[in-house]
């Protein structure tokens, strides 16, 4: 637990100083907003109808960038070796990296929501509690698989290509569940309407998390 914490501390500190990922991700989100706008045209109704899908498309695309970078910092100065030689349970490193990714995604998601609210004149305040729950469940699932696959592809040639190819089909359930649940929430329906989806998301999160925890040591070995 202490190890997981120090990994988060290290990554957050590095990120706060370099701001490499965060700056790029926020800028990327703004770009996405423009792309969505141009692709859908100016009609507000169309944006609103497609909103749950657009939001998650934005999250997943930014997530792909974030997950792909997670372990790149460990390649500098061979820090990766140090992590492998760390005695004890390697899943602490996975937990730390996962927490870092969830944090990063949370910031990006908040930025995207604000941008959507401002540029498309939407008001999320009323649905915020429900929306946060859906976002939390969906993000945890995405990041669980993303962190694991990011570690696998970090050591490979063509990693920019391989990560989406592996990740996107694997997280189809998360995408389906999150978009459907987000839709329910945004329509102002009670959260119970989406209970089945929330349960599916939670189950998927647990499965992905357990697989990640158990297999990470084999991935780390490089």
């Amino acid at each position, binding site marked *: 637990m202490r190890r997981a914490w120090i990994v988060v501390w290290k990554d957050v500190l590095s990120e706060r100083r370099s701001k490499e990922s965060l700056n790029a991700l926020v800028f990327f989100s703004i770009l996405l907003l423009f792309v969505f706008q141009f692709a859908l045209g100016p009609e507000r109704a169309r944006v609103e109808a497609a909103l749950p899908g657009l939001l998650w498309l934005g999250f997943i695309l930014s997530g792909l960038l974030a997950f792909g970078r997670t372990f790149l910092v460990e390649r500098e100065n061979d820090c990766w070796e140090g992590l492998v030689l760390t005695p004890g349970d390697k899943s602490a490193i996975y937990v730390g990296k996962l927490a870092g990714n969830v944090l990063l995604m949370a910031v990006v998601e908040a930025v995207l929501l604000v941008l959507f609210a401002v540029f498309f004149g939407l008001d999320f305040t009323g649905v915020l509690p429900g929306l946060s729950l859906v976002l939390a469940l969906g993000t945890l699932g995405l990041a669980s698989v993303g962190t694991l696959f990011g570690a696998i592809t970090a050591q490979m040639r063509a990693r920019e290509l391989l990560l989406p190819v592996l990740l996107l*089909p694997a997280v*189809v359930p998360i995408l*389906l569940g999150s978009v459907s649940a987000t839709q329910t929430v945004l329509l102002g329906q009670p959260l119970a309407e989406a209970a089945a989806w929330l349960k599916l998301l939670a189950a998927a999160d647990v499965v992905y998390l357990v697989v990640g925890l158990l297999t990470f040591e084999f991935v780390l070995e490089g």
Partner: protein
Amino acid sequence: MAARVLGWLAALALVAGLVAAFGYAPREAVQGNVQRIMYLHVPAVLTAYLAFGLVFLGSLGYLLTRRPGWDRLALAAAEPGVLFTGITIASGSIWGKPTWGTWWTWDARLTSTAVLFLVYVGYLLLRGMVDEPDRRARAAAVVGILGAANIPIVHFSVKWWRALHQPATILGPESSPIATPIALALFTNWIAFTLLFAYLLAKRMQIARLEDMHAG
């Protein structure tokens, strides 16, 4: 040697399967002869699931023992598994054209099979990108395990997602109570496909073992 025997058995069973599908099974009343695609479609998808189950087993075995044989099992099962999912999707699509009037609908079974197809194509792509055997085996095993654990999740998510938009599928055996001859023909073809898969698996593992030996 065992592979050769399996090969002949598979060939025989496939002939029997074709006879059962085209000679023995009757013309279906509602759909007509186009329903005979079912004898290809359903055994293919069942075999694909069997294959991915074996990928899971091989992956798990490799991570636990680090014996290359387990990795060869995973590889040898994944390749035909992808082929069989491909056949499932193609035959489903061809079946769909005269039935629904369109090549592709986002039918639950077709969609989840397509997702699996993509997952395991990614698995094979990953394998192609790592040269070092142990590293390749470990990376592939992790993806293979997650892929298998994901199968039920994909299945349910796609099913519920479709349920929001349209009623259940007409493809597949659960659509209507099946008459005995149809069930028998399905069974014969299922046996035949399983034998064919076993043959391909044995052959592919044999090749992989030879390749490993040559690589040192």
